[in-house]
């Protein structure tokens, strides 16, 4: 009987799909409640369609938009042979079509992947990350980005954003409506309700979207680590990139009395505002997951 070394992470899957359903429900709820409150159901359908349309356009042109925003250029296998060879092998290992490869001339260490489908996607790295990481660590980062491509994260995230986009459009429409018809006292309360509803939907979808983004990052870490079979390489890359090498101290803290005085009480944990708004999970959470992958990979044959 063949065994599997996949970590079972039902909790993450359940939390992530719940967030996705909530975001979908939010979108439907916004359009349906508009239909009841507003006099013209046509307008609410229009706003819903416009929201999806804008998300669709963002998704469709995502590779060009992101490359332009990062001032990245596509490189050929002759220009960057090592990078191309590395991606070639990872794609053969993951059984996926090879994406285009881009390099952005930027000192900040970063990497991203976008594109409307695995056949039309771009993986881009900055020159900063090429200088900072070893080949093994770079491979871990590329595997993380390829997992985003394989699981169509751009599509998932932009579709998930359509509730927020529709609510944003509604807010604009209400502002124009309020200016145009400010003398008509009868419609004013209805406009205020619409403004309130769209603002609440916008805020809630913003928070849910950030939560979803953090879950997708954890999933990409996990798939990337299973792809390269070297969770430790990705872990050290993450530590280098986030400048958080100090999270787990490399030297004996007793050597530094000033620091040890501070470390008697651990830093306050739990929900913080910065944590709610972050698009990426905290480093400790990512390292903890990679450690679990490592344990599963090295569990002796039974």
């Amino acid at each position: 009987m063949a065994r599997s070394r996949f970590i079972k992470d039902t909790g993450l899957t359940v939390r992530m799909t719940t967030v996705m359903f909530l975001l979908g429900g939010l979108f439907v709820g916004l359009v349906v409640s508009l239909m009841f409150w507003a006099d013209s159901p046509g307008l609410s359908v229009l706003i819903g369609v416009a929201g999806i349309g804008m998300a669709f356009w963002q998704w469709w042109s995502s590779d060009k938009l992101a490359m332009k925003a990062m001032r990245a250029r596509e490189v050929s296998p002759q220009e960057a042979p090592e990078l191309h060879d590395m991606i070639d092998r990872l794609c053969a290992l993951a059984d996926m079509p090879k994406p285009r490869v881009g390099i952005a001339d930027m000192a900040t260490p970063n990497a991203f992947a976008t594109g409307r489908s695995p056949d039309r996607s771009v993986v881009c790295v900055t020159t900063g990350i090429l200088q900072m990481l070893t080949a093994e660590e770079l491979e871990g980062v590329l595997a993380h980005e390829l997992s985003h491509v394989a699981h169509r994260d751009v599509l998932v995230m932009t579709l998930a954003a359509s509730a927020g986009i529709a609510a944003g459009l509604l807010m604009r429409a209400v502002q124009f409506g309020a200016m145009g018809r400010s003398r008509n006292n009868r419609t004013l309360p209805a406009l205020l309700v619409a403004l309130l509803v769209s603002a609440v939907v916008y805020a809630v979808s913003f928070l849910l979207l950030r939560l979803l983004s953090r879950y997708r990052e954890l999933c990409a870490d996990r798939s990337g680590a299973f792809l390269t079979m070297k969770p430790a390489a990705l872990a050290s890359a993450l530590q280098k990139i986030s400048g958080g090498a100090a999270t787990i101290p490399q030297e004996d803290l007793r050597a530094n009395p000033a620091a040890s005085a501070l470390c008697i009480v651990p830093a306050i944990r739990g929900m913080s505002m910065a944590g709610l708004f972050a698009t990426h999970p905290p480093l400790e959470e990512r390292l903890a997951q990679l450690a679990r992958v490592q344990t599963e990979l090295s569990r002796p044959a039974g």
Partner: protein
Amino acid sequence: MGLWEILSARSKPKRNNLDALFLVPSAAITLQTAAGFVPTGSGSVCYRSASGAAFSQTQDEVVALIHDDCDAPEVSLTQDAFGFTWLVVSGDAADTSALCTDLHAVNTTLELQGFESGLLCSVVPFANAGGQRFGLVYLYKRGTFYAFAPTGDHQRDNLVELSMRDLLSPELPMEPDLQRWLALWDAPGL
């Protein structure tokens, strides 16, 4: 990729029908009669070693398994520049089926221990009297074959590769997508 795999952002590792490796001995006869290429007697499996004790234990078992074979072919392990391990089996050049059985055993053992996601490919090199060489590559994740003919530093002989595809396609499942014909520059035996 299914909808659930996209939503849950995790995909199941692929397992392929390794029996295609047993078609190589008859393809070798075709290659000898029609193109003058004969097997060099060695063959290799390329995979990614996982960190940790479990993998080295499995790898030791594989090497011991091949050593215990009655023909006792030579087994060696090499690392390449991309962090992949090549397990090279060198035996009798005339006995391609024994070689393919060994390669099959390596693939199956790694699969059984849950390391199938690390398997990249298996290569059987061929050479002709003129000294030209190519490797018949079995891509584990695709379950298909292609020919890789390097001719020096980062150059490959595409005409040989394409003619081998046309010659072998009645016998072996050949990879139709040319984008997947991975270049394996420092493959042992090529």
